[in-house]
Each structure stands twice: as C-alpha cells, then as structure tokens.
C-alpha cells in the first residue's frame, strides 16, 4: 500500500468539488483500500505472480513429459505487462466502435489491469480477458448491451468466449466493481476552476481541459491508477497542460485550508512522478516487440487452460471425480439419516423427504 501517498491523497482529494464536502467515499472505497500499491510493491506482486506461474506450468509440462520444460522460454513479468498493455490499447478502439461512454472505457481498462495483478497471461490470454472485462464494465457502469449484440460485432468472437471468463474476471476483481476515475476528478477540478474569481475565462481556455483529458487518457496505459489517487493523476495531467492553472488551483485550495506547507509543494514530488510516468509510458507498446512475446506465449502457456489439451482433460476429469465423490457422500449421508428416521430434527412426510433430497441435489457448494 502506498502509505506515503495517503496524506497527500487526502489534501488533493478534499479539493475536488465533485467529491462533496463530507469525507469522500473514495477514502472508504475498495479501490483506496485494496487496489493501491507503492511502485515497489507493484513490482513485487508481478514478479512473484510470474515466478509462481512459471513454476506451476513447468511442473505441468514435466508431469506430461519429463524434461519437456527445459527448452521453454517462459515470459517474464515485464513481457506479460507488455502484452497486457497491447490489449489495453484495444479497449478505446472497441469503445469507439460501440460508442460506449468514457466511463465504460476507463472501467474496463482498470479491470484488465487488476485482473493481471491476480492472474498470469500464461494461464489466461489477454484477448478474451479484455473482451470480458469490457463486457463486464458495460454492465457495472449501467450501460448494458446484450451479449449477442456485443460479440456479433467483434470478429471471431462468440458469446462463450466472454461467458466462460466472466465469472473468473469478476472473481479476480474480488467483486469490487466500483472504480474511481481520473477523468472524473479532472472534471471536478475544472468545475472548481470556473469559480475562481481571479482566473478569467481567457486564462483557462477549453483546450487546456481537452489537453489535460488527453493526458488522463494516456495515463491509462500506465500504472498510475494503481499507485496514485484519481485526483493526483488529474492534477498532474492538468499540470502538463498548463502548469499555471494547476498552480492556481492548488493555491486556491491552500487558501481555504492553510497548512504549514503550500499544497503545490506537498504535491510536487507526486505530480512530478506521475507526469514522468505519463510522458514515458503513456502510449501503446511497439507492436513488433509484442508480436515476439505473443509468439513465445503460444509455447509456454499453461496446457491445463488450453481447452482440449491432454492436461486440460486430465484436470477436468479430476475435478469431476472429486465432485462426484462429494455428491455420493452427501446423498449417502442423507439416505442414512433418512433411514435412521429423524434427520432434520422433526418427523418428515415422504413428500418433504423427497423435497429435502431434491434441495440437497441443487445445493451444490
């Protein structure tokens, strides 16, 4: 967690008018609590996830055919990232095609990033995960479209490509669907600016907002949202567009709640780091380098997750065997209990007994 950031976050967050006067929900949000990392922590998470995945897949290869994993060039964490980034860049394209609102686009991108903090691309290829994240985002932001309409507009995609993964994606997100976005925070700051008396309209031309928004969009290619608060990102992007206006906004906030240090100073390092990140990494990756990664992925992906492969079938059979055993045990338990007469603490009629059995069948946890 970016503990160091949190105090700064508070001061920036409190400023934005879109967030209201009371303690903003943001600080009680699942995003604030569960999806913010320090840069070091973020790196750790990815490295460990990657190492664990490689170990598992290596074992699977070896179990299938001893020695078969030695020649495999597994992806490293950086390469996984690169591939994810490529698929991040597909989301705005699709959203443009479907005319989805910005909320959908930003949310889908957050979902995709969060998914790969819990999963590896070697298990789940980002193409379908991306399509699923986007479909899920249309629903969680209350812009639903039918799955049929969705997949029929995307080449070589069928409803099952999305349905098969939707639950896994939702689960990987911890069912935490609400996402706070920098573009909203930017809008809040922009509204604040309109009410600054000493900032006349010609000093805050609309194109400053547009440019800042462009940088916010660029920031979606980066890890910024996993490290910084939406307001910090918005401010940094505003600062790229117009350092003067950003300064004015910060000054107006300092004037309202004066502290020992002006807000702009408090924020300086943070904004600097975000700006650097946006300028450095705020664009889609080079397609050629990703193609290389994708080619290697075909050789090192987890065979257990490849539908139809030997390892996949083995795993399914194993799962089914376990479920079968469980069902049998349950049914036996019930039968025995029924035979003993008083299974549920009271006498049951035959009809009720039948119902209980039916219920147990349906109760499949």
């Amino acid at each position, binding site marked *: 967690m970016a503990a160091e950031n949190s105090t700064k976050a508070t001061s920036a967050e409190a400023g934005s008018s879109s967030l209201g006067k009371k303690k903003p929900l943001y600080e009680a949000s699942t995003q604030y609590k569960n999806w913010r990392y320090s840069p070091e922590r973020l790196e750790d998470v990815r490295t460990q996830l990657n190492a664990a995945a490689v170990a598992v897949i290596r074992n699977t290869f070896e179990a299938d055919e001893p020695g078969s994993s030695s020649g495999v060039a597994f992806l490293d964490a950086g390469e996984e990232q690169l591939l994810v980034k490529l698929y991040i860049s597909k989301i705005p394209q699709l959203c443009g095609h479907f005319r989805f609102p910005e909320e959908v686009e930003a949310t889908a991108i957050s979902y995709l990033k969060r998914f790969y903090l819990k999963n590896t691309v070697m298990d789940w290829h980002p193409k379908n995960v991306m399509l699923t994240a986007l*479909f899920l985002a249309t629903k969680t932001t209350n812009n639903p479209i039918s799955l049929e309409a969705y997949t029929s507009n995307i080449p070589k995609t069928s409803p099952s490509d999305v349905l098969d993964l939707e639950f896994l994606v939702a689960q*990987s997100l911890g*069912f935490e669907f609400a996402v706070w976005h920098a573009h909203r925070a930017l809008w809040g700051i922009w509204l604040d600016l309109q009410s600054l008396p000493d900032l006349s309209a010609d000093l805050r031309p609309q194109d400053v907002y547009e440019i800042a928004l462009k940088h916010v969009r660029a920031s979606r290619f980066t890890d910024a949202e996993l490290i910084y608060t939406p307001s910090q990102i918005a401010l940094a992007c505003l600062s790229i567009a117009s350092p003067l206006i950003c300064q004015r906004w910060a000054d107006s906030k300092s004037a309202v709640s004066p502290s020992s240090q002006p807000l702009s100073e408090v924020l300086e390092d943070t904004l600097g780091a975000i700006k650097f990140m946006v300028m450095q990494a705020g664009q889609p990756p080079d397609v050629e380098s990703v193609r290389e990664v994708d080619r290697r992925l075909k050789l090192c992906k987890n065979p257990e997750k490849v539908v139809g492969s030997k390892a996949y079938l083995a795993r399914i059979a194993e799962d089914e065997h376990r479920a079968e055993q469980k069902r049998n045990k349950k049914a036996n338990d019930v039968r025995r209990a029924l035979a003993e007469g008083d299974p549920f603490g009271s006498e049951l009629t035959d009809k009720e007994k039948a119902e209980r059995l039916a219920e147990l069948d349906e109760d499949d946890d």
Partner: protein
Amino acid sequence: MDAVERANTERQKRWVKDQKVGEGTYAVVYRGREFATGRKVAIKKIKVGQFKDGLDMSAIREVKYLRELHHQNVIELLDVFSSKTNLNLVLEFLDSDLEKIIKDRTLVFLPADIKAWMAMTFRGLEFCHRNFVLHRDLKPNNLLIASDGQLKIADFGLARDFTDPGHKMTCQVITRWYRPPELLFGSRYYSTAVDIWSVGCIFAELMLRTPYLPGETDMDQLKTIFRALGTPTEEDWPGHTKLPDYVPVGQFPRTPLRDLFTAATTDTLNLLSKCLIYEPRKRIGAKEALHHAYFFALPYPSHPSKLPKLSNNTSSRPLDEVDGNVDMNASGPGVKASAPNRLKRKLSSPGDELGGRPLARRLDFTQKRS
C-alpha cells in the same frame, strides 16, 4: 489451483450454510453462520449460469454498491464468494422487515416508534445520497430490521449512481405504490428526490398501517396520488405537463393531510408533506429532513431495542388502540385505509431476460390478488 480459486475457497470455508429461509426472484436465501465465531449471517445464492447475458444486472448492482457502502443503516455485505456457477453474497442476518412489522396486527406503533424508523431510514438514505447512490426501490419490505431493532436499507438491485447530473436514466424504477409522479410522467432526468417520495409513502404507511397510495395500474397510480394530494397546478409543479408521458388524469382538489392523519402532530405532517411535494426540486432532501423539527420535538425517537418486534404470540397490545395517528374511518381521498390492503406488494415474473429483465421484474405489476 490458481491463486484466485484458492482465495475463493478460503472465503467459502469461512461460512457455513444452514437452512433455506427464503426465495427471491433471482436468488435463494439461506441462514448461515461464520465458521469461526458462530455469527449468524444470511447467504444469498444467486444462480449465474442461467442468464444468456452472463452475470445478472441486479446482482451486479447489488454487489457493486454494497461493496462500497458501509453504514449502520445500510445492510452490510460481509463477503462474496462463488460456488460452481453460483454467486454467494454473505449478508448480515436480519430477522424481519418493515412490511412484516406493519402487517402484524398485534403490534401497536407509538409515534416515537415511527419517528425512530423514519430517522434510521433517513440516515441510511442520506448516506447513500451523499455517496451519489440512488436506491430506486425503497418500500417497506426493503427496509430490514435487525434483532437489535436497527433498520437497514437493503436490496440495491436497482440502484445506480448519479454523478452525471445531465444523465438520462430509465423511469421504469421503484415499485408502483412508492413511485413518484415525475417517474409516472416519464421523466428521465431525476434525482435523489425520487427516493424521498418513496420514504414519504412509507412514513404515511407507518401511520396508516396500510399502503398510502395503492394504485392498481400506472395510470391509476397517478389518479390515486392526485386524489390524495390534489392535482398539481402549473404553479405547484412548473413544467410537469411537458414531461414525456404526461397525461391529464382529472382534477382533484387538495385535501389537507390532517383529514386523514387526524392525530398526527403538526411537525409530523409538515415533514410528510415536504416528502410529498410534487416539484422534485422543492422536495425535502435526506439531510434536511434529518434536521427537521419533527426529529427534535417530543416524543423523542424510541430506542431501537424498544421498537415493536415481530411476535409469534398474539398477546401483545391490541390493535384497536392503534397509535392515535390515524382515523381509520376518515373519508380521506383516495385512501383505502379501512382494511389491510390485499394487493400484492411485490409482483414479479421470474424468467425475464436481461436487458429488460431487472426492470421487467419490477415492471410486471399485473394484478394478482392474493
């Protein structure tokens, strides 16, 4: 097993399902407990596999909002886990709901009890609104009651956020009897005021012990409202005749609330009338309501633990005493208060599909008399 699956299994192991306690449109509810502590919980199992559009919108909304909202007067979502193709929501266990309590004719409500329920409802709602969440389905059976008497707003299956003021929204929300006139006229740009209207209807119902505005169709709903509160004039509610589905439904005079709520205090009726103002922008807000004189006047709200509870025995205070708030024989306009209302409050049709589904389940208000 992947990390995600493992984490899910860990979660699942924390909870034990005991016994089925109820069934809603899209879920089966079990009583259960936390394995480690024995704490009683409700486990709401939502079938996921059955929808051709994947995860159901109601479930998504419910999870999305309850994951974020934590307040004494909002139902607490303790955990979420999956079992095969089911989504399981672990909720705090709540014994009853306000509808059941209203219908229990053995219970007598004191004005202080009603005040306590209203205060808790407004507190929960103020929290939702402060966090830009519209509930859009407030009614007595969505106000659940904990064993300690605390009231909790539940069922966020129709909720949405409203950060965008100019955003067009569907008007097909809120169970008819609690639906405000702007929605009945098809307004697509509405706000927190829609929930306040519902609270007003619940407030009146607590005093009447029967639904206040039980329309039989959408059209009849407008008539029922206007019969009770008078047909709005252009002055009462500027621009309402320009709303998309506006239809004139007849002229009814405004009768004072006092005629029906004979024994209610002036403060009570003042707050009630402010919840039921036609012009949505003039309707009272949740925060303002909490500062209303009603809540500061005597009698003070009952302590939650002292509130009427569902009783299985019938030997409590007899109903004849009622609460002194209502004249059950008043010829109040449009209010069928004389007998417990027999229209079903919740009419739903399972098997609707997504797209229309979550709305359709609320929209299907075809007459079913029980």
